[in-house]
């Protein structure tokens, strides 16, 4: 592992319980700035749960208990004086199913920045909407129909709208929970190209079931199995020369 990358998220001894069920065991992993980190592993291995720990989305489930630290910018986001709402503003999230709000394309992008007071209604807001949609590679397709509902777009466009909505609040980190698993190959290709573009500005953590996708886009890959982090290294190392037998079995398709 090279050391020239700076650590964006430092996860230390993270444990998570759903009620009695111990879902994540002692996860310790540094996640790097301006890189794409892919989380892979069989279904139910805890990779999505882990992802949701990074922006405290698991707080929404009352039975969840979390122990350990997730340090972003020298501050543990699970400290008592940290408001989870402001964590989620800085750590954006894109979901598996495209989930635009039942509002216009414009409102989808502008709603959160307006609420956070990042822009005022008017010219600033229009510029922000345009810039976010341009960055998400959607502007040319929707510039003439910003007032149409977001749900009128195709699945791939909706997902890019969700990405535009996420980057409009200017996060530093973007979490993606299987962002392409509900999309067709062409839309998937567009999203992947977009991810490579976005990593220049943001640190991206993505969960994927698609091994080729991890190999194509990720700089680092973490392999999870049964709530444990089995192996974490540069993607090339994981795919070409994994040090753990389980990792090798999984990426060669012997289980999962």
């Amino acid at each position, binding site marked *: 592992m090279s050391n020239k990358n700076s650590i964006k998220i430092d996860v230390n001894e993270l444990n998570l319980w759903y009620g009695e069920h111990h879902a994540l065991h002692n996860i310790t992993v540094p996640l790097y700035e301006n890189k794409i980190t892919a989380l892979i592993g069989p279904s139910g291995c805890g990779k999505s749960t882990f992802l949701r720990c990074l922006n405290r989305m698991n707080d929404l489930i009352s039975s969840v208990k979390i122990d350990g630290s997730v340090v972003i910018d020298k501050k543990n986001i699970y400290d008592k004086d940290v408001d989870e709402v402001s964590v989620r503003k800085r750590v954006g999230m894109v979901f598996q199913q495209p989930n635009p709000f039942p509002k216009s394309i414009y409102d989808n992008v502008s709603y959160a920045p307006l609420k*956070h007071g990042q822009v005022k209604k008017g010219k600033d807001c229009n510029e922000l909407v345009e810039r976010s949609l341009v960055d998400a590679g959607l502007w040319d397709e929707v510039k003439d129909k910003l007032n149409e509902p977001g*749900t009128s777009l195709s699945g791939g466009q909706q997902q890019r709208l969700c990405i535009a909505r996420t980057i409009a609040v200017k996060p530093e980190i973007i979490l993606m929970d299987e962002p392409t698993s509900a999309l067709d190959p062409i839309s998937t290709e567009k999203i992947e190209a977009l991810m490579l573009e976005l990593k220049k500005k943001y640190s991206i953590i993505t969960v994927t079931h698609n091994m080729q996708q991890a190999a194509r886009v990720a700089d680092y890959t973490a392999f999870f199995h049964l709530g444990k982090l089995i192996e974490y290294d540069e993607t090339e190392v994981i795919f070409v020369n994994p040090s753990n037998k389980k990792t090798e079995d999984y990426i060669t398709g012997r289980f999962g």
Partner: protein
Amino acid sequence: MIKRNNKSKENNPFYDPTLKSRHRSSKRFKKFTLTSLIFSIAFLVFFLYDIISKGTPAFEQAYVSVPVTYNEKTIKNTRKAIDRKYLRVVSRAWLREIPRQVKEDPSLMGKTVNKWALADDQVDQYLKGHYYKLKRKDRALIDDMKAHGAVELKFNTIFFTNGDSKIPEFAGLNSAIIGSIFTLIITMLFAFPIGVMTAIYLEEFADDNKFTQTIEVNINNLAAIPSILFGLLGLAIFINLFGLPRSSPLVGGLTLALMTLPIIIVSSRAALRAVPDSIRQAGYGLGLTKIEVTRDHVLPLAFPGILTGSIIGLAQAMGETAPLIIIGMIAFIPDAPSTVTQAATVMPAQLFTWAGMPERMYIEKTAAGIMVLLTVLISLNALAIYLRKKFEVKW
């Protein structure tokens, strides 16, 4: 349909000897279900036919043209205003109105004018071919007047402008309609916000624990409680404990609000639950707070469902009689209330009162009242469907 022929087993590899009887029982089952449908349609048609045929005559009212004398003496004793032979065919209630007519039009004073006077209920029933009690002399008089065009069936405006009356031809639905409107406004004013807020709390904020589960079970049970119990509750709380005026739309509305609350809560919760969780996740993922997510993204999606449930609850409250009888909204109310604390009655309670009256004319008034009530209820339900369609977000 393809004709089945399972009889020959030769050259038929699909032959199954059990199929014949299985298909037959299937057909029998279809017949049973169809018969039930026909039964219910027949009941509905019979009910509508009965109500409409009994009720439509009430929208017409007999009037007789008689010479009326206006002077000091007849204003004091209105029975002297018309010829004695007309006394049995003109409504007593109409004669009582004579001083008011003079007040409205002082030029009538000292004149004798031909006026279209409201006919007595027996005359009205006789003209409509119903059961009547008229002496032969009066009947001959009416027949004679009819031949001269001095008797007419006109549209019954009294039915909509007057309140209740012990004189059947003078009784109308007006005070009951106003009472119903006041009562339902109070009901919605209390039940809608409280119900929707409760549903939002239970669905969006509360954890799923023993406490909320108990509340949920109890709310579902409340929706099925006999409505008369709500009347007793209203009597005990609003009248006896809080000392609010008896028979008033305020108390009636609050009582019906108690009854409507569970319906609104249950339907609002269902509407909120139907909103996909991904919308909430998307909101929280952007760093939005609970109120921003709930108010701006969840509620707009749930709104059509909440609205539909509320209107159906409103319609149910509108047709409710039992709890209102308990709190005294069955009183004789000739004048429409002007505030929510005055004594009032509501449409179904008014119909209940009329249905118990001995005079035949009240039968058709009751049926006509049912027609009005049904029209309002169907309109409310149509409104619910329209609003749901209009606000429904395409998903």
